[in-house]
């Protein structure tokens, strides 16, 4: 990213500044650009990490590791690339590293908790409240529970699309697969989620 592009930023609205320009700004020493970038992607990245590792403490550690990596690597970020795929590639690598460290003999493709009965995690997340249990909330809890029963690669593809709004092509690049494979994973993920929700609909 050229310095000139960053120089005109103060005159532009915050929404108009691209992620890539913010990374360039931060690389040039503007910490406010980083803060803006963090604000934009904090929650989506947090939810992606949480869905993948399902442990808040671990997700918080990963969150720090990923953003620390961004602070280190920002000067080497190439302006012709998009920031979001880059960010999620870093996050995915950190997840894989952690998984390998914790489960050195377990395949990355193995479902984390395939034996867990459907809906087992729902009560863990929110205490049942007879008064507040609206149909919509129940539906949301059911989706999250169903998500946990997806194979990891399908869950990952779905979460990347739903949380980060990434394209199929970007998901394919982040996960190191072909476009067709990423597309298939997304389709299977949705089909299974719908089937699970239908099976356990009240």
């Amino acid at each position, binding site marked *: 990213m050229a310095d000139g592009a960053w120089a005109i930023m103060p005159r532009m609205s915050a929404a108009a500044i691209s992620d890539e320009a913010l990374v360039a700004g931060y690389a040039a020493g503007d910490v406010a650009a*980083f803060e803006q970038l963090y604000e934009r992607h904090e929650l989506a990245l947090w939810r992606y990490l949480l869905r993948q590792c399902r442990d808040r403490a671990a997700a918080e550690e990963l969150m720090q590791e990923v953003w620390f990596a961004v602070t280190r690597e920002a000067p080497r970020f190439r302006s012709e690339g998009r920031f979001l795929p880059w960010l999620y590639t870093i996050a995915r690598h950190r997840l894989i590293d952690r998984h390998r460290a914790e489960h050195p003999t377990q395949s990355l493709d193995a479902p984390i908790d395939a034996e867990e009965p459907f809906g087992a995690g729902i009560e863990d997340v929110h205490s049942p409240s007879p008064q507040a249990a609206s149909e919509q909330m129940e539906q949301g809890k059911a989706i999250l529970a169903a998500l946990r029963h997806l194979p990891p690669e399908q869950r990952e593809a779905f979460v990347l699309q739903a949380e980060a709004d990434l394209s199929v092509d970007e998901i394919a690049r982040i996960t190191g697969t072909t476009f067709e494979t990423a597309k298939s994973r997304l389709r299977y993920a949705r089909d299974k989620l719908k089937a699970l929700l239908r099976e356990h609909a009240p």
Partner: protein
Amino acid sequence: MNPSDEERDALTDEYRRASAAEAGRPAATVRKAILAEAAAAANRRTPASNDSRYLWRGIAGVAVLGFAILMWKQVDHRLPGEASVVAARSEAPGQVLLETPAPAAAAESKPALIKEARAPRPTPAVSQPPAAPPLVVADRAADATPAGMALAAQAESSAKAAVSREVANAMQGVPAPAPAARALGKMSAAQDAEVDADALLRLHFPQQYQSSAPHSVWLVQDATGAVVRSGELAAGKTFGDIRLEIERELGGTLLRPWRIRSLQNARGQIIQIGIAQTR
């Protein structure tokens, strides 16, 4: 948008709502740590990394340094005692032959050279001095009258000057060129020779290159530049001795004159290296 897309969007929207409600936010300490690290990393980075002004300054600095090194290399830093002497050995008998004088033998070599230069020469030496009155004229004049003696003294003086020029030319190892051309040629050749000698020293004498004592080493290259013999000059031996040994070993193959350089090794010690090529 087809029904499948609507369904997908509904599912995605439902998921997003549920996910946002359930996941909440990371702890405030996490956010604080990340932003603090971002500020620290920005401070750690040198401003030069993304500022083209610093890049140009860096390039300019390197260029100036390179130029300074080049200029330094153009100047002959050798001390008179370390001066490399290119032996000018001629096939013709009686020609001036200069071996690098060993420190002890250096004093003796000069009279010998003058004596040899005075000797009659059937063929001209590498460099032929300008015509000077032969010494026999001076000898003959010395037997004559006072006027003749003055003439003889003048003749001898001219002859000595001629010998000095010849020795100087022989030290250069080439016929005396025009002053400007000689200056340019000498600088370039000397520079190349220094680089060659240094590279050969590092490559073939790594032990001596790292040694904390002075050494004298030699090597012989064939016509392609490959090193066919090398070794260290033993105490009491001269490069001339080595020449004879090598020529015997190589079955009568003659060596070109030694090019002898005095270099500094990695520990600042003087390493004298003699380099000769087979003819």
